[in-house]
């Protein structure tokens, strides 16, 4: 008591100090009170305040409910009991602290570096919330856990996002130049090589144990399509969902850095300079028939892909039919925004330390990068092959846009093309393989669901 008074005098004139003193006083009184009441504590309160028997009851309970304590306990565990550490790389407290830093890093990348902020800010923030000690926000009773169960476990959120993407996508460039669809197919090669890579890692590196389902979910990162990756990972490998989503969106954001060197390595200067002829006009009725056609092929060939392809095409039909503008605008704006916020937070809930801080996450990150590179190369190489066999040349750079990552990949293609020839605008030509890549990765997801699901 004396000490707090002296403190007050000494720092007089600074309100902050007074308040600090008040604070200490409050806590001190709280302790005394709790101690005083501990003896005649009524029965009805005993279950809610079970620690109030000890003199320092309430304060102790409060301290135990702080995050500081949780982190410190976690830190202590690091040095003391090594034997319970077998199935866990690092103790929980420290792990959660690291994951909070990771969440902040994602947010920083999103804001400062422009890494897919629409997704990475919610995912990063969700990751921080999921790693708050004590609160268990990402647990099955926590609100992030509830949103996850409602929206991602059921597959609903990725499907609604896909509907919105459909309502924003113009398939005109693809319809105008159908054969570019094949480039969107070739770029899915990255998915399957990564799948094999994951199985190989699993076989040769002791700490990594991916099942076939896990490998399939990891491979889909190479599809460069966020909702598809989240949908498939939610079905095949929920535990890896956080790492897969983060990898997918991070690499999608890194497309301008990852792709150009590969594109340049596989093409000659002449090839990069090829000028493509202007596209034909696509009629409204073709655009309306297109989504139904894709859906029809999907039903015939691969019903397991219909949820994804179907919702994409439903969104696109709403947009192109021209008679339900209020629905297509809502699907492409308010609805997709709401779902994006909730989806991002829910995905972030899978960044809980005990799931994320594993050697396997490192494997996923490396494999995802490889998938992107192979997909890019495959697209470019098929474009070169097609040029060999056809008289009507296409610029092989547009093959790189087949990895999806709409519209970033197409923009990168345009940028590399303009670098070579300032008057060669490839953007619209690259949109063809780009949107075909979205269909292609959804089809690949369907195959993986059908064969591994």
């Amino acid at each position: 008591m004396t000490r707090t008074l002296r403190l007050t005098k000494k720092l007089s004139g600074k309100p902050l100090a007074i308040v600090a003193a008040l604070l200490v006083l409050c806590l001190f009184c709280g302790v005394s009170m709790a101690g005083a009441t501990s003896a005649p504590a009524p029965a009805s309160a005993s279950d809610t305040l079970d620690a109030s028997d000890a003199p320092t009851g309430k304060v102790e309970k409060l301290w135990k409910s702080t995050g500081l304590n949780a982190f410190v306990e976690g830190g202590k565990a690091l040095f003391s009991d090594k034997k319970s550490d077998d199935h866990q790389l690092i103790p929980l407290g420290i792990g959660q602290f690291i994951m909070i830093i990771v969440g902040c890093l994602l947010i920083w990348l999103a804001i400062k570096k422009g890494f897919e902020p629409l997704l990475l800010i919610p995912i990063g923030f969700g990751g921080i919330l999921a790693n708050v000690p004590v609160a268990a926000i990402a647990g099955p009773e926590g609100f992030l856990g509830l949103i996850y169960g409602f929206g991602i476990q059921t597959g609903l959120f990725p499907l609604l996002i896909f509907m919105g993407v459909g309502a924003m996508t113009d398939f005109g460039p693809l319809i105008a130049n159908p054969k570019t669809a094949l480039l969107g197919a070739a770029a899915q090669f990255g998915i399957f090589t990564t799948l094999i890579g994951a199985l190989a890692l699993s076989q040769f590196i002791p700490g990594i144990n991916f099942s076939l389902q896990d490998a399939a979910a990891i491979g889909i990162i190479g599809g460069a399509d966020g909702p598809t990756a989240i949908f498939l990972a939610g079905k095949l490998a929920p535990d890896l969902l956080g790492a897969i989503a983060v990898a997918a969106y991070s690499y999608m954001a890194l497309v301008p850095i990852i792709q150009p060197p590969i594109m340049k390595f596989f093409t000659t200067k002449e090839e990069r300079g090829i000028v493509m002829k202007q596209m034909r006009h696509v009629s409204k009725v073709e655009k309306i028939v297109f989504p139904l056609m894709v859906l029809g092929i999907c039903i015939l060939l691969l019903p397991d892909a219909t949820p994804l392809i179907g919702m994409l095409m439903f969104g696109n039909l709403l947009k192109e039919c021209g008679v339900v503008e209020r629905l297509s605008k809502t699907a492409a704006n308010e609805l997709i925004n709401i779902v994006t916020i909730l989806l991002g937070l829910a995905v972030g809930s899978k960044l809980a330390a005990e799931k994320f801080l594993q050697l396997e996450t490192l494997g996923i990150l490396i494999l995802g990068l490889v998938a992107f590179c192979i997909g890019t190369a495959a697209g470019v190489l098929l474009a070169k092959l097609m040029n060999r066999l056809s008289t009507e040349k296409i610029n092989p750079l547009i093959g790189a846009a087949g990895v999806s990552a709409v519209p970033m990949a197409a923009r990168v293609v345009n940028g590399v093309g303009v670098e070579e020839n300032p008057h060669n605008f490839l953007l619209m030509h690259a949109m063809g393989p780009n949107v075909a890549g979205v269909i292609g990765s959804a089809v690949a997801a369907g195959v993986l669901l059908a064969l591994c699901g």
Partner: protein
Amino acid sequence: MIVEGLGLMFAGMGVVFAFLTLLVGAMKVSAKVLKRFADAETTRGSLETTKTAVLHQVGDELTEIAVAIAAVKACARS
């Protein structure tokens, strides 16, 4: 398990290519079938072009306002 993965790869790439090849074919067929619709649309399209032209005219009118103001100012000064 890796060999199994290779099987998945061939099956998967096969289906992806099959899907998109079918789509290419379907698009080519539909382009031909729907051509007359497109032609019919073009006629209507020209009407829309007229509309756009009208809109441009409105834009021009805004320019005209600016011109008018300039003229009035010039008047006021003189």
